[in-house]
């Protein structure tokens, strides 16, 4: 019996288990390991601070998504021993052997990496929305917040769902307007990048959007520390931004078990081939989803398209055959812009987001790089698709590789 071991039962790991349990024959045993029994719909966290979603909208038991015949072990991971083809779990249990290993341990926020962030003001005047607890605490805080200066700060890239900070600000603009207090709220976006939009065509088409919504951008802001009593964030080159409410997107890092195994880069992400996800060092080890060090977006859609390519490749690879597909970095995401509208972007390693229609060229129904109500409904509908189609590895009528059809380049 051949053994496939998958570490992490999040978006990528669960999809891999589902796809491969269909594609592999009875000669295989698939085992999944995760530290907790709850699956989170992470894209939904964004809506919680504004009261659009509650806890029940974003959690389900992991077991609901594990196919029959796949074993789920609930335990933290101590370390991977790739030279010995085995994984040690926390505690004294015997190690898990594997023939092939898929690392899908994700990325997590690390507020402990920025001085001052998690001291006495954490979850008081300093919040996050990348965890369920953080999003719920922020929702509670915003309900009674009298207004003032709200600063959203990205500590460093890459982050999960790279557009979420912008969406948060645009939803905040809408939220405070609805509550009749927008004039008492200042919205500021402090980013380590050179602007809110950095790709040429998106900048051209969306550059004025934040101005129009009264959101001020502080570019090239690389945070060094927070001074929680003085309520200001300070950059490495001594710029200061004062806040009344700080919404931080802390440094994102891969799992500590990756560091303990000596398999990660500076941020604990696992280096793999960007087209096939195979480790250059260990030919029976793959990394998928946010855990992988890829020049692609850390997003559920990337994981989905990647798993589609990977699963079919794996069946060939395990038989010693050449892998038929090369992943192109395809990702797409809805960007909530407030007032019941959203944008949609679709891109890959080489092609930046372009305007047009998706998925049917000329028809849509979704508009690329342009606000529409249909995009907003698409985003809300997506939660249902995630639970019922994507996680279960059922086919979605969208090609895994990016298509240029329906897109147009600007001159």
């Amino acid at each position, binding site marked *: 019996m051949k053994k496939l071991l998958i570490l992490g039962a999040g978006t990528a790991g669960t999809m891999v288990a589902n796809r491969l349990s269909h594609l592999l024959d009875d000669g295989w045993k698939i085992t999944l390991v995760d530290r907790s029994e709850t699956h989170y719909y992470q894209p939904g966290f964004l809506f919680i601070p504004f009261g659009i979603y509650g806890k029940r909208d974003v959690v389900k038991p992991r077991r609901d998504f594990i196919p029959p015949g796949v074993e789920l072990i609930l335990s933290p991971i101590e370390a991977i021993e790739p030279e010995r083809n085995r994984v040690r779990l926390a505690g004294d249990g015997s190690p898990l052997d594997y023939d092939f290993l898929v690392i899908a341990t994700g990325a997590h926020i690390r507020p402990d990496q920025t001085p001052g962030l998690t001291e006495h003001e954490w979850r008081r005047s300093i919040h996050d929305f990348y965890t369920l607890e953080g999003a719920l605490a922020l929702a509670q805080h915003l309900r009674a917040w009298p207004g003032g200066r709200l600063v959203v700060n990205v500590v*460093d*890239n*890459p982050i999960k769902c*790279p*557009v979420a900070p*912008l969406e948060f600000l645009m939803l905040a603009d809408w939220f405070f307007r609805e509550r009749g207090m927008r004039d008492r709220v200042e919205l500021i976006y402090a980013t*380590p*990048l*050179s602007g809110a*939009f*950095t*790709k*040429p065509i*998106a900048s051209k088409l*969306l550059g004025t959007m934040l101005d129009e919504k009264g959101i001020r951008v502080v570019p*090239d802001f*690389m945070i*060094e520390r927070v001074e929680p009593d003085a309520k200001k964030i300070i950059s*490495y*080159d001594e710029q200061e931004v004062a806040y009344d409410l700080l919404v931080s997107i802390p*440094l994102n890092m891969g799992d500590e078990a990756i560091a303990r195994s000596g398999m990660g*880069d*500076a*941020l604990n992400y696992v280096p793999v081939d*960007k087209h096939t996800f195979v480790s250059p060092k260990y030919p029976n080890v793959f990394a998928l989803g946010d855990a992988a060090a890829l*020049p692609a*977006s850390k997003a559920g859609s990337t994981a989905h398209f990647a798993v589609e390519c990977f699963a079919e490749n794996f069946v060939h690879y395990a038989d010693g055959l050449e892998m038929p597909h090369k992943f192109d970095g395809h*990702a797409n*995401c809805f*960007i909530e812009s407030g007032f019941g509208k959203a944008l949609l*972007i679709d*891109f890959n*390693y080489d092609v930046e*987001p372009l305007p047009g229609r998706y998925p049917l060229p000329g028809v849509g129904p979704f508009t690329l790089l342009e606000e529409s109500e249909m995009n907003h409904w698409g985003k809300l509908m997506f939660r249902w698709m995630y639970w019922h189609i994507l996680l279960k590895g059922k086919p979605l009528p969208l090609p895994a590789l990016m298509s240029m059809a329906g897109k147009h380049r600007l001159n």
Partner: protein
Amino acid sequence: MTTRVISGKTVQVNEEGFLLSPDEWTKEIAVEIAKEEGIAELTPEHWKVIEWCRQNAVNGRSPTLRQITAGTGISTKEMFALFPKGPAKKVAHIAGLGKPEGCV
């Protein structure tokens, strides 16, 4: 997309003056761009960073500041002293690599 002549060599650059092809880069070009970025002289410390970034670029894209500090052992504070205001972007420009970008 335009071309420009930097220290006698014709290269392709984008609207912000970043080289489009890392292969067209030379050390002489680095010295010239550094001057435009307000760095009068490239010290051995500067070169250490530039060379590390060129060796560790993925897809022609420069590493992030955190990767640079971890990889070279040069602290973030020192990076800001060497390449003031946005060191990651400045190094990318001088090293002939793509600037750090988001997805939009």
